[in-house]
């Protein structure tokens, strides 16, 4: 019995230490770097600000406002392509942020082609709320609903008729919707990858290879859907259904955040 207790204690201490250590991983240093980059931005030193934000992102730091600020810095530098790409990446973490939506629209209006991200299709239309919540938010919601569901089920075991029966059925439906929503979110994020043209202009080819027929031309900041990735080429689709192959070096993928 003592041996078993000591194992449980060790595991408990290890987990506690892990939680504490990861909780403080963000640390003061990252926040001071963000603060410094913000101050560069405020002084109009957008190049330095962008470099500061980018360095944090390259180091694996993930935050929607960080991408947002980086997008703003690129916009100020006149680089609409990288600006739009970072706004789209920020949208993953801040799906309901109005400032982000406004800045993205403004940046797109600055582009030659004015191609906007595709609107929701298929599952995205049916489960319309999925795109308005991050995966993390949906998992948190699932956790709470899960707690309520089992709680209600426990009471229902004792008191099967009346209110608790209705509550059990309602909680079952809500739990199922929460699970389906998470599944849809994962599916949509893996299937619908957006790309943004980063070069001043790029030629979209009929097949992989620079010698193939040029189907059309896209300019910096054009938002496209990436259907497939093969070697150095993306197979892209525009909102109007036009498709073709674009060189990866000229197109930034939102999935590469």
């Amino acid at each position, binding site marked *: 019995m003592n041996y078993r207790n000591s194992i449980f204690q060790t595991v408990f201490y290890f987990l506690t230490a892990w939680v504490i250590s*990861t909780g403080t991983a963000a640390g003061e240093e*990252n926040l001071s770097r963000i603060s410094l980059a913000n101050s560069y931005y405020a002084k109009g030193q957008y190049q330095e600000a962008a470099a500061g934000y980018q360095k944090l992102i390259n180091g694996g730091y993930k935050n929607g406002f960080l991408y947002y*600020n980086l997008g703003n810095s690129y916009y100020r530098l006149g680089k609409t392509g990288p600006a739009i790409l970072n706004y789209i990446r920020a949208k993953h973490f801040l799906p309901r942020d109005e400032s982000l939506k406004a800045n993205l629209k*403004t940046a797109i*209006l600055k582009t030659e082609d004015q191609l906007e991200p595709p609107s929701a299709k298929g599952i995205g239309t049916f489960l319309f709320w999925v795109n308005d919540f991050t995966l993390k938010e949906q998992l*948190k919601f699932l956790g709470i609903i899960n707690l309520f*569901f*089992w709680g209600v089920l426990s009471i229902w*075991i004792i008191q099967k008729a009346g209110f608790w029966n209705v509550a059990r059925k309602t909680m079952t439906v809500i739990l199922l919707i929460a699970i389906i929503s998470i599944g849809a979110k994962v599916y949509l994020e893996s299937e619908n990858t957006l790309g943004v043209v980063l070069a001043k202009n790029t030629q979209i080819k009929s097949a992989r290879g620079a010698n193939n027929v040029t189907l059309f031309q896209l300019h910096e900041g054009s938002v496209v859907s990436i259907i497939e990735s093969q070697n150095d080429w993306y197979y892209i689709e525009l909102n109007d259904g036009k498709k073709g192959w674009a060189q990866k070096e000229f197109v930034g993928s939102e999935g590469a955040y």
Partner: protein
Amino acid sequence: MKISPLPITANFLITCLQLMLMALLETPVNAEDIGLTARVDNNEISLGDTLHLSLTVKGVLNAPEPNLPPLSDFRIRSSSTASSTQIINGQRTVSVTYNYQLVPLKAGSFTIDPAILELAGVTYQSNPVLIVVSEPGAHSPAKKSPAYIEAFVSNANPYVNEQLIYTFRLYRRVQARNLDLSISFEDGIFRKEDMGDAKIFSRTINGIQYQIHELTTALYPIRSGDVEISPATLEIDLLAKSPNSPRQSPFPQIFDNRFFGSRANWLHKTLRSQPLAVSIRPLPKAGKPVKFSNIVGDLDISATIGKKELKAGDTTTLTVTLNGSGALKGYLLPLPKLSDGFKIYPDKPEFKLSVQQNTLMGEKIFKFALVPLKPGHKILPSITLSYFDPARNKYLIKKTTPISLTIEPAEFPENLNSAENFKPKKSNTKNSIETTGEDILPIHTRLSDFEEVSANGSDVILLTGRLVAPPVLFLLFTVYIRFNQKLKHDKAFARNRKAFKIARQKLKKLSSSSGPPPRDFAKKLSDIFREYVGNKLNIQGKALTSFEVEQKLIDQDYPKEQAEQTRVLWGKYESLQYAPTTDSKNNLDMIDESLRLLNQLEKKS
């Protein structure tokens, strides 16, 4: 049209049997017995027939395939091998026959030179064979044959760009399979458009009913001059009856196959149509309009507008539709010439094809988004189309009806500028600009917003806890509820579960009592133990003897040793009742022993 052969045929089985027989009766043969013979099924054939050439090697079964002579005037279509063994009056003769199907490529007299076989250093030669290939129809009229083809054009003297219909027809009165059609139109002379799948219909010609397969293609000559459309070639397998079986089956579709033992066999034929001469005329120079569309045919043009009354800055759609028999696919309508008061955005044209009365009709729809810039009454001028009508033999111009528009002032006047036509890139064209302004919103500076959002250890533990803990707790709760319910409703279970607790309490009470008479002590101890056993086994324990207890415990799968110990202890209780002792130490030992045995029984229960 392909029919897969049966996996195992009678010929195959016969060949296998022959090979087995050959293995059994293997005897050496002399070089003098070996010979090579060439044979054909017909020395005089028509172009389009298939010649069957057989090379037979006699006297040896495992000979290599003879080398065929050069056959530049024929195409070898297929080949097969057959071997045979005959035993007549004890004399065995063996042979291997190599069969070839030859398709003649041109008419004339040809000699098939000897084939050569090299065997054990000896060269064997076959006999030469003379073949006469005549033009189709020289021996028998094509229209009496089981199948024939024809090709023709709707107009042998078309203008450049005028549509002409090329029609190919296969007439057949027997079953056919493996159709392989080859029609070639020279590039640079015609542009072609398919007119859908082949039509199949029946027609009686000279009292004979034919199934007709008709395939049509629309051709548009690209340049003028005399040209020849190459003959169409159709390779086909036709069902032919054996001369030994002239009787026509009443249900040929069902019974003319190998399964029902029909003697029908398939003949391969190559059918050719006649070449077609077409003289393409250039378009007349006289009367040619300056902006000629280069379309030849019978055409129509119309224009419609989405809204005739609208406000400055609103959008309406101008739709121009062209339809007719001309080559419209590649035609692009120039942008309508409108006054400076409009912005115009062309859409991608739509094109549709349809077949009407054996003519390929095209419809091309051009759409233009129009944005009026200034209020007032505007007229959209007519749109013209100049084309050449070959039926009337002259150039024609068709115009759409002018469309009048009433433009009211914009509700929210904008700085609309006609000079920005075709540059819809900046602002003013989308209402969203008004809501966002011309500049981006500022950066976020609140540091608490910058918490890292990637999943860390605490998130994972919290999420796992939220997902796993509730069902685990629910499971424990369910077990607890079920346990309580069973205690409440199942008396045997309740007695069983409570037995040890009751016995232990009573034993403790007995051990702490100051000093009951010894006889009473032994009885109480015995009662406690009897009650325990009775509760455990859900029986009336007080009336049991020590041997009955032992047997009941064994029946309930208690270890034999414990059952025996119980019996012994039970005996001690009884003897103590009748021979009491005043030694309190002995009493406490009895209680300890009882408690030990109860613990052991409880563990095993």
